């Protein structure tokens, strides 16, 4: 398949996935907004689980099924992509402020239009109303969803479906001329450019624009049922089935792994490397994203800074290929066989995600509560001093105030950084293309072993590789929380 055909095929798949995903996004987002505070974190957890579950394992679990027919492989790819795209749409929708034109405003305009005689001006006003209403609110979410679907690499590769990413890997392997590669990369870049520019523009602009409250969505049994069924399917197909596949022969795999000391040592070494690279890249991206989302800059400077998001949005594969070529130039060659290109490519790739996470944290943070918790943490003050509190309220101890502040301010930050680290840890393209000799990531080892059907050993290695950073992050989190309440 030519690159152009592969690009169009991927684009068609992207459009299909986004069209199917959009009603699901709306249903889930509405359900989340209506859910009680107690349930909301749990729903978010269920929503994000398929998105955060390692793609490599998902693809590997369905690989045998996909081999049975190319059509089935394509259907599986679309279905599994759906579970990765919907969470992105829901989170973006949830973080975006309310539309400038509310549902009531659109309804009033509609009534007005029906009552008046048809004219082009009135129709245009109606269109504008929709534009400032649901369309403008949907654009950032749709843009980001399309990018996630279009840039899909590992699922498409493991399920053996046509994809432009597959074409680039093949071209790189057969040693296509660099100039030719750059020329050919214009195809996916041009296709993504409107999405990328739109995603940056609308995400940032919508965030800067206003802080209006959302309309309170009206309850709808159908919407809720759709959201619940979707979440159930997503968790089963996107997490539980791959987990079940992984846990088959896990115990015999652990025994085998323990007996093969060199394998275990090698994997541990590669896990430490991958974690160190991920932390460095994630923190770099996090610090840069803080300055990018700052509102204090001038307009032109702000736009210039935000243009740094462009390379990251072009996807890990193209970015890693370009970084590899860049560091083979004479003047950068001394750094070629070092971890620098790997960290740099990952940081640039993570930057748009870091910006999105920052915006989401800001959109969902409780600023009044945070301010109050900071006041409380600074001085142990009687509860009666707090407006609205009972006169007999006891003194709020500083430790509880610190715990409150940790929950409101530090916990989201730590979770966001952990999420960025996790994404970096799971990125195959950069690890495969940019890791220096002797410093490969365990992910590349797992990807290699997935071709041999070593299920038991692979299960144990994958459990260790994917489980260890989660446990490490959880421990760091616990330590920080304990220290915060001291």
């Amino acid at each position, binding site marked *: *398949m*030519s*690159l152009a055909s592969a690009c169009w095929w991927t684009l068609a798949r992207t459009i299909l996935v986004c069209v199917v995903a959009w009603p699901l996004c709306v249903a889930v987002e509405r359900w989340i907004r209506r859910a009680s505070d107690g349930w909301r974190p749990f729903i978010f957890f269920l929503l994000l689980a398929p998105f955060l579950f390692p793609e490599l394992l998902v693809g590997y679990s369905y*690989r*045998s099924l996909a*081999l*049975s*027919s190319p059509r089935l492989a394509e259907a599986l790819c679309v279905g599994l992509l759906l579970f990765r795209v919907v969470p992105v749409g829901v989170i973006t929708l949830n973080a975006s402020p309310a539309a400038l034109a509310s549902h009531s405003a659109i309804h009033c305009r509609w009534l007005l239009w029906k009552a008046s005689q048809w004219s082009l001006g009135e129709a245009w006003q109606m269109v504008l109303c929709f534009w400032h209403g649901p369309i403008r609110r949907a654009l950032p979410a749709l843009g980001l969803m399309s990018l996630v679907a279009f840039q899909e690499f590992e699922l498409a*590769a493991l399920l*053996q479906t046509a994809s432009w990413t597959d*074409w680039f*890997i*093949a*071209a*790189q*392997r*057969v*040693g*296509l001329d660099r100039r030719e590669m750059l020329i050919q990369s214009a195809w996916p870049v041009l296709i993504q450019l409107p999405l990328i520019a739109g995603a940056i523009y609308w995400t940032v602009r919508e965030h800067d624009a206003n802080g209006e409250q959302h309309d309170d969505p009206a309850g709808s049994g159908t919407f809720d049922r759709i959201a619940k069924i979707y979440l159930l399917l997503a968790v089963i197909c996107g997490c539980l089935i791959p987990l079940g596949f992984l846990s088959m022969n896990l115990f015999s795999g652990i025994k085998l792994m323990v007996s093969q000391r*060199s*394998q275990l040592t*090698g994997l541990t070494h590669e896990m*430490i*490397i991958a*974690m*160190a*690279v991920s*932390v*460095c890249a994630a*923190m*770099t991206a996090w610090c840069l994203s803080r300055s990018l989302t700052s509102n204090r800059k001038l307009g032109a400077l702000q736009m210039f800074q935000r243009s740094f998001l462009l390379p990251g949005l072009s996807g890990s594969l193209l970015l890693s290929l370009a970084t590899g070529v860049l560091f*083979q130039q004479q003047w950068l*060659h001394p750094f*070629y*066989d070092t*971890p620098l290109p790997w*960290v740099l490519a990952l940081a640039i790739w993570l930057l748009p995600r870091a910006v999105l996470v920052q915006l989401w944290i800001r959109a969902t943070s409780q600023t009044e509560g945070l301010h109050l918790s900071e006041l409380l943490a600074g001085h142990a003050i009687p509860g009666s001093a707090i407006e609205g509190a009972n006169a007999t309220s006891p003194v709020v101890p500083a430790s509880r105030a*610190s715990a409150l502040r*940790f929950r409101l301010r*530090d916990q989201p*930050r730590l979770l966001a*950084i952990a999420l960025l680290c996790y994404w970096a840890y799971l990125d195959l393209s950069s690890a*495969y293309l940019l890791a220096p*000799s*002797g*410093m*490969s990531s365990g992910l*590349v*080892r797992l*990807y*290699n*072993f997935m*071709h*041999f*059907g*070593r299920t038991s050993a692979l299960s144990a290695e994958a459990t260790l590789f994917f489980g260890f950073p989660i446990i490490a992050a959880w421990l760091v989190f616990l330590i*920080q929380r304990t*220290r*915060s309440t*001291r």
Partner: protein
Amino acid sequence: MTDSATNRSIVLIPVFAALVLASLWLSILPGSGSDDKTLVVYCAHDRIFAEQVLDDFFRETGIRIQARYDTEATKSLGLINLIVQERSQPRCDVFWNNELLGMVELQQQGILERYQGASWERIPERYRDADGYWVGFAARMRVYIVNSHKAAATEETLGSLFTLEPSRVAMAKPLFGTTLTHYTVLWHLWGGDRLKMWHRDLRLRGLREVDGNAAVKDIVAQETCDAGLTDTDDVFVAIDDGLPVEMFPIRITAEPDDNPPSQGSSTKHYYTICIPNTVGIIRGTKRLKAAQRLADYLASPKVEMTLAKSKSRQIPLGPIDGLELPDDVKKLVDWSQEGIDLRSLLPARRECLAWLKTEYLK
């Protein structure tokens, strides 16, 4: 926790990670001079088997190996291109390739260093370079894999499958790896025009193309296809897993193939495809002595026997104690006697690859 404590943690964690990363990198950094304690090896052979061999080498010699492996789907060609790209400032000392023609390509480009060591002496002439630029060892063969529940493992059955139902046959994309070597042999024996016609005809009639030989094995073992073209090591993975597969060698002749070789009446000469691993030292290495030791080690009887007894059942090429060989491998040794001499096929490979690029990448 105070503000400063939180900020301190946020600064300290990445600083610690950067220090760990830097120290790991420095610890694996080969010495800048002629330090013979570490070698950078690019390895296209399956990691599962290669890692054990390289670990044994470290234990025996104290020379540490930093290996860079390729992925199964794009075997060898990726590493060859990387070596070519890095030729002005090579970081690889020794290249362990899992096929032969890629190594001949590197030799033609002047990237390899000559070395006629003890192992070069013991390997038969057709599996080594006459001037010592590379040496072959531990081979595998191209074979037909057949699902024994679906078809008989005979050349007649395969012939009718290719003629009548190519959609029941699976093959890896011939752009890379041993399938590329297979196509090169076909190009050499049949000529470009006949191969192009055969290939296009099969694709038009629904031949299942997958991303690697392991996928061919999977697709046949799970009965999606009845048969496929793959390598012996992949078939042994399926056999060890108790899957219903059988194999027999692919035999190719230059003339039009009316009668399969098993019918016995044919006077044509049939070739099997026996593809050795190869090892070459990269020109410009600063660790020549260590590189030579590794080249000698890889093509030694010990490593050949290790690989013959491994799950991949590689065929030893040099003299070896036949009594110790597993029965599976003895059968392969017989098949390999008919193997075509691959050394002169570089022009065919270049032409074939140029055509395949136009087929798959344009």
